């Protein structure tokens, strides 16, 4: 088991192999994310019941929660890829980390924006300096920092190293975002989804939410693979196999 994992890990380190295998995966991920997102959106907007207190404005949860979950997952993945790049000097890992950053920043922005739109009618304020909201804003700035560092150096390697270290340091923020609503008094309500407990809302509300979350993950997978493939082609353009790809067409 471990051995096959190690073998797979080393093969993934080869840009050509990564390019080939993700080329085969992308259509599956793209179709899955399109189906899940369309089904989830229709279900969430048309069929899921409204909330007894908030009415229809509750439905923004179906964008807000998936985006917030993705924002944190992507940051974690980016930091892990950065660590692999630092320790094993794996170029593909650096490219994955680089491709993660703009997607994660967009997700963070979507979470903050939908949160503000949701906060105005329910709480009565667009923005409150509460621990959850502030930690999420810091996450957005960390993403900006990582993106800026990646292009701040002449050599791609130094940029990758610096941004990997920043993302590893920034990973400390992830548990703070997650537990902020438990550690401190906040205006933000506690988590909608937890791994250990059943959601507090009925199935007809949380099943479409789960569909949206999985759809967002598939969408992220598709975009990440597409971006990484572009990055691979860009950096490996002088190699035989990329030249071969070009001459074939």
């Amino acid at each position, binding site marked *: 088991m471990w051995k096959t994992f190690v073998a797979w890990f080393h093969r993934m380190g080869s840009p050509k192999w990564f390019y080939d295998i993700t080329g085969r995966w992308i259509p599956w991920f793209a179709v899955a994310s399109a189906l899940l997102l369309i089904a989830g959106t229709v279900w969430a907007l048309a069929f899921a*019941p*409204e*909330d*007894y*207190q*908030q009415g229809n404005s*509750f439905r923004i*949860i179906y964008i807000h929660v998936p985006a917030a979950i993705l924002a944190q997952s992507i940051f974690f993945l980016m930091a892990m890829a950065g*660590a692999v790049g*630092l*320790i*094993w000097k794996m170029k593909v890992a650096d490219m994955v980390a680089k491709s993660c950053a703009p997607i994660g920043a967009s997700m963070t922005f979507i979470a903050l924006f939908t949160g503000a739109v949701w906060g105005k*009618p*329910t*709480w*009565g*304020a667009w923005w*409150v*300096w*509460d*621990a959850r909201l502030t930690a999420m804003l810091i996450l957005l700035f960390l993403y900006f920092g990582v993106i800026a560092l990646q292009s701040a150096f002449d050599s791609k390697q130094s940029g990758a190293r610096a941004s990997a*270290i920043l993302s*590893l*340091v920034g*990973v*400390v923020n992830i548990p*703070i975002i997650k537990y902020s609503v438990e*550690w*401190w*008094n*906040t*205006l933000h*309500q*506690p*988590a*909608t989804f937890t791994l250990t407990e059943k*959601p*507090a*809302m*009925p199935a*007809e*509300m949380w099943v479409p939410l789960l569909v949206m979350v999985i759809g967002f993950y598939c969408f992220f997978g598709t975009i990440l693979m597409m971006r990484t493939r572009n990055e691979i082609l860009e950096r490996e353009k002088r190699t035989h196999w990329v030249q071969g790809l070009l001459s074939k067409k």
Partner: protein
Amino acid sequence: MNPKRKKKLILLSSMVAAVAVAVGLVLFALSENINLFYTPTQIAQGEAPVGQRIRAGGMVVEGSIERARDSLDVQFAVTDYKHEVIVKYSGILPDLFREGQGIVAMGSMNDQGDFEASEVLAKHDENYMPPEVEAALKASAETAAIE
């Protein structure tokens, strides 16, 4: 894993651990300031400064809302089920404001020990439910009360 990589792995993990400890200590030291609001118990125990702008949070006590007839003045009590604080406010309350609802008010304590709010925000929890379920819950609670 070769020794060089192992060394790097240990170095990186200890760096992350050190940052985590440092941030943890800072947050622990600041924890009082990170709390968005004071609870009625903290106010009753005199932890909240008088005259300064602070936030107070709690549940609106059932039957405590008093509205003025000719103005937007409103007064209600908030509780954390141990202590209560009277909140005075003048303005439009958020849609979710109602008895039994969690709220966070911005303002300051006056000399009488009442909280004069300049802004009231409604807090909601993660227990979303359809209106029918809420009606059913209420109905069953009422029948239970009658029995």
